[in-house]
């Protein structure tokens, strides 16, 4: 009943090859060069991890600033004088980038004096920074590029991805795109929103190249996405360890595979769209701007044709993580493995047919009806996955630790996110809720409550594997609870704001909404504290954490075969797959004893 053959003598060789993190006596610059020129998927994964976490921090700070601005309504804060003229009292100007002013002699200068105009300009730039950084620089690359790069070859029992050099190239493209975006931010950012809707994005800030830079950044980042996707697809097809059929792959691999397909098919569309947008901005050709004979709705079709599938690029890998966490920590085969695997592919397919649900207020009756119907179609495979995950818990042996808490939090938050998609997909209710805070809450529940929560959960789960160190479980669980409470406080209030009539992307608002906005802002602080505690916990683990065993959770997928951290070539010898990734009922996990992870009696 031993699972994968690891002849005992191999253990003796373990010290021949050090951990991939060993700097092998290279000096400081030597180590830097070693990392900068590495083709090791694990090192590239860790570099992505550092970068996306940095971006998460940057986007998070912008998000907190947006919330602070919304503490005060501003518009109604002033009193109307006896004579009927309002005396303006400015409140709620939290952070001010200043604004461009024109002096009497026509020269332009930058003023940091707080005016209502500069306050809303600042706000508009902040939410754009927040959205663009979170979407293009954080969420899209987060799970696939960071965890995917690290884990995919390990889970397949391979030495590396199919094209290691291409992988390094993708990383440098990402770095280039990120640099361009940061340059545009340092130059005071743009105010188009992450959606770059035309004609606004073509007309705004006409003297500056910031909008151009921001769009260019998104364009460049797209290539990184496409190449990584391509690399992963080939890796899954070609590099599975001997004995691993398609249905022996861990569900995380299935999810990354489905994601890669979407990335390769959809990203070129946004690439071309952004290119057209750049052309239009620089050379004034009319494609999307009506004042030049273009059509703004065309832009929206192009944009959402990419951006709807991309929400599944964000969520599918998260779903993959959740499948792993639930199975390993409840020691259960995942319920309905094939249903989950196929629903990933189903979602990837249908996701290309529903983009119009972002445009119900822009299209005619027929198109709206068709897109609404198709939208409900995509809800079904999503619901099936949730049912399967919960059924996985049935008759498990459920460990309560940070990864598991995150998996449960995911089920809670993602269910709310999915269910609130229903009133947005139904036409009558969407006409009310579209572009309101309800939509803001909906996509935070799916993207943050779904993807970010799964990402942090996965980070805890694979942290021992990546760095060979354990983190402090109690601190991790405490921070998880804090994040959960903070998240709900921040975003549940926004559902109610939306149904009550609060529009999206508003720097100021009418008095009625103040209480809910304030609760939301306080929630965002809890959330921030929770994340900072996680950060501290991780740093502490790196410096002083106890050494991690190769398989602390008793996982069965191949990455747990490897050392923690893995050796440079991942495995001492090519693994031979003799059991599925979720055969917890019949297989003692590698590196583990049966006392630790007992098998059901009838089998052993």
């Amino acid at each position: 009943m031993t699972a994968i053959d690891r002849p005992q003598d191999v253990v003796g060789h373990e010290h021949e090859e050090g951990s991939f993190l060993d700097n092998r006596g290279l000096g400081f610059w030597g180590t830097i060069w070693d990392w900068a020129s590495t083709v090791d998927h694990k090192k590239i994964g860790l570099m992505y991890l550092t970068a996306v976490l940095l971006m998460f921090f940057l986007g998070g700070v912008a998000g907190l600033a947006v919330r602070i601005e919304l503490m005060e309504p501003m518009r109604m804060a002033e009193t109307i004088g006896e004579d009927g003229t309002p005396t303006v009292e400015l409140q709620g100007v939290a952070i001010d980038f200043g604004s461009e002013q024109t002096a009497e002699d026509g020269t332009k200068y930058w003023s940091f004096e707080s005016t209502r105009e500069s306050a809303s300009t600042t706000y508009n730039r902040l939410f754009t920074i927040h959205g663009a950084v979170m979407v293009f620089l954080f969420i899209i690359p987060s799970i696939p590029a960071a965890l995917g790069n690290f884990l995919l070859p390990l889970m397949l029992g391979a030495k590396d991805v199919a094209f290691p050099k291409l992988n390094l190239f993708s990383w440098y493209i990402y770095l280039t795109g990120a640099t361009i975006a940061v340059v545009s931010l340092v130059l005071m950012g743009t105010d188009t929103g992450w959606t770059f809707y035309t004609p606004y994005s073509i007309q705004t800030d006409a003297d500056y190249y910031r909008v151009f830079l921001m769009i260019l950044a998104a364009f460049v980042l797209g290539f990184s996405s496409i190449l990584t996707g391509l690399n992963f697809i080939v890796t899954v097809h070609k590099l599975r360890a001997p004995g691993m059929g398609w249905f022996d792959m861990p569900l995380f691999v299935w999810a990354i595979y489905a994601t890669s397909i979407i990335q390769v098919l959809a990203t070129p569309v946004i690439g071309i769209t952004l290119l057209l947008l750049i052309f239009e901005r620089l050379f004034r050709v009319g494609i999307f701007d009506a004042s030049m004979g273009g059509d703004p709705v065309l832009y929206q079709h192009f944009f959402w044709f990419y951006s709807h599938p991309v929400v599944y690029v964000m969520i599918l890998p998260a779903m993959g993580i959740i499948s792993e966490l639930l199975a390993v920590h409840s020691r259960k085969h995942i319920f309905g493995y094939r249903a989950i695997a196929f629903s990933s592919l189903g979602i990837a397919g249908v996701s290309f047919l529903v983009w119009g649900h972002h445009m119900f207020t822009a299209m005619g009756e027929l198109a709206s009806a068709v897109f609404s119907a198709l939208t409900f179609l995509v809800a079904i495979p999503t619901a099936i996955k949730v049912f399967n995950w919960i059924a996985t818990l049935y008759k498990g042996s459920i460990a309560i630790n940070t990864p598991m808490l995150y998996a449960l939090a995911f089920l809670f938050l993602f269910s709310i996110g999915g269910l609130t998609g229903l009133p947005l997909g139904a036409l009558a209710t969407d006409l009310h809720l579209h572009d309101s805070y309800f939509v803001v809450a909906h996509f935070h529940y799916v993207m943050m409550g779904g993807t970010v929560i799964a990402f942090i959960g996965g980070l805890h789960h694979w942290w021992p594997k990546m760095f060979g160190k354990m983190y402090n479980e109690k601190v991790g669980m405490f921070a998880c609870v804090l994040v959960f409470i903070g998240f709900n406080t921040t975003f549940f209030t926004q559902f109610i704001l939306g149904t009550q009539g609060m529009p999206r992307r508003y720097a100021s608002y009418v008095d009625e909404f103040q209480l809910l906005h304030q609760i939301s802002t306080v929630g965002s602080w809890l959330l921030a504290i929770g994340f900072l505690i996680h950060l501290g916990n991780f740093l502490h683990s790196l410096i002083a954490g106890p050494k991690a065993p190769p398989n602390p959770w008793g996982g069965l997928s191949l990455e747990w075969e490897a050392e923690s951290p893995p050796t440079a070539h991942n495995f001492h010898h090519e693994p031979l797959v003799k059991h599925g990734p979720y055969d917890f009922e019949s297989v003692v996990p590698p590196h583990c004893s049966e006392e630790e992870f007992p098998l059901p009696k009838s089998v052993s």
Partner: protein
Amino acid sequence: MMQDAAVAVDAPDPLAVFKSHELRLVPESGGLLEKLFFRAAGQNEQAVMTDGLFLLIFWFSVFFFVLLMGLMVYWVIKYRRRPGVPAPLSAPHNGPLEIFWTVVPSSALLVIFLAGFWGYMSKVVAPADALRLNVTGFKWDWEVVYPGGEKPAYTMPLGTKDAVKIIVLPENSPVQLLLKSNDVIHAFWVPDYRTKMDLYPNRLTTYTFHTEKLADDEVYRDHWVFCAEYCGQSHSEMYAIIRVVRQNDYEAILADWNTGSLSCEELGELVYRTNCVSCHTVDGSPGIGPTWLGSFGTMRALENGQQVLMDENYIRESILYPEAKRVAGFAGQNMTAFLGLSEDEIAGVICYIRSLSEQGQDTPEGEEAPGDGAGTKGDSADG
């Protein structure tokens, strides 16, 4: 009905009350959930229907959510890990169960979809007798033109804005908005009526709502109008107020606002006489181009064999880009593009052509009775 107006000795202004800077928003009403989600129960049939659908979805969601989370928490506690105790055996999947939980929610979704579509139609298809307003959005305010050519003249200072427009509407009447933008995209959202639509610089969009009946002791009731599509710096200041008043007050206010400008229809007729009369007739007789009589809302056969609905966007397109869609039977005849017409003049032409169809409806024996297309608007052709 102006008993509230101050009965001053000298020059009593019977309309003073409607110029009031006092906001009288809808007071909180309805059940607990309605208060939480919407502050007040819906103000018209469409809004009540929308809230109903929302609450239906809400309860549907609550049911599934509680069921799933209940099972999750129960199982996590019941099957928590005990050292040395293995997980009991269980089946890795269950076909009938999986089919059951696919089919049942799917059928519920079908119901939600249908209800949503039905409610949507009542928000976009205007009744024939609707009051038609031309609304233009621009950075960062709204311009409204009433059918008689009047424009709102009452404003009030609110927040940092010193002239927020008050759009007066008669109580208990259907209203249709014909929307367009002068610059970027905006969206006209009236949360109390639970509906919105985008405004575009290159085409017309439309939607409809029904104003509510005022209570006996009410003189007016206010509703917020917000811009819901991000449009730049003062996007969040782009708001207005809809003030619903009684019918006779509405007429008095519009008379007060009338500056002698031409009504929408008159403007259209003027444009017709100066530009179009040489080719188009309005009495049904043949001309170089198609006659306008009774044409609005009908399906037109095109040269390429397609059919197109004669609606606001089709008229606008035919004025600006006449060659885009050519009506069958006029081969060899070309119309010049009237790019010099303003959006107001185009709106006038639309009013005028529409009025030519309504006359057709009035005369029972009218030979050119418009087809049955008048009620339903197709997908905006050039979208």
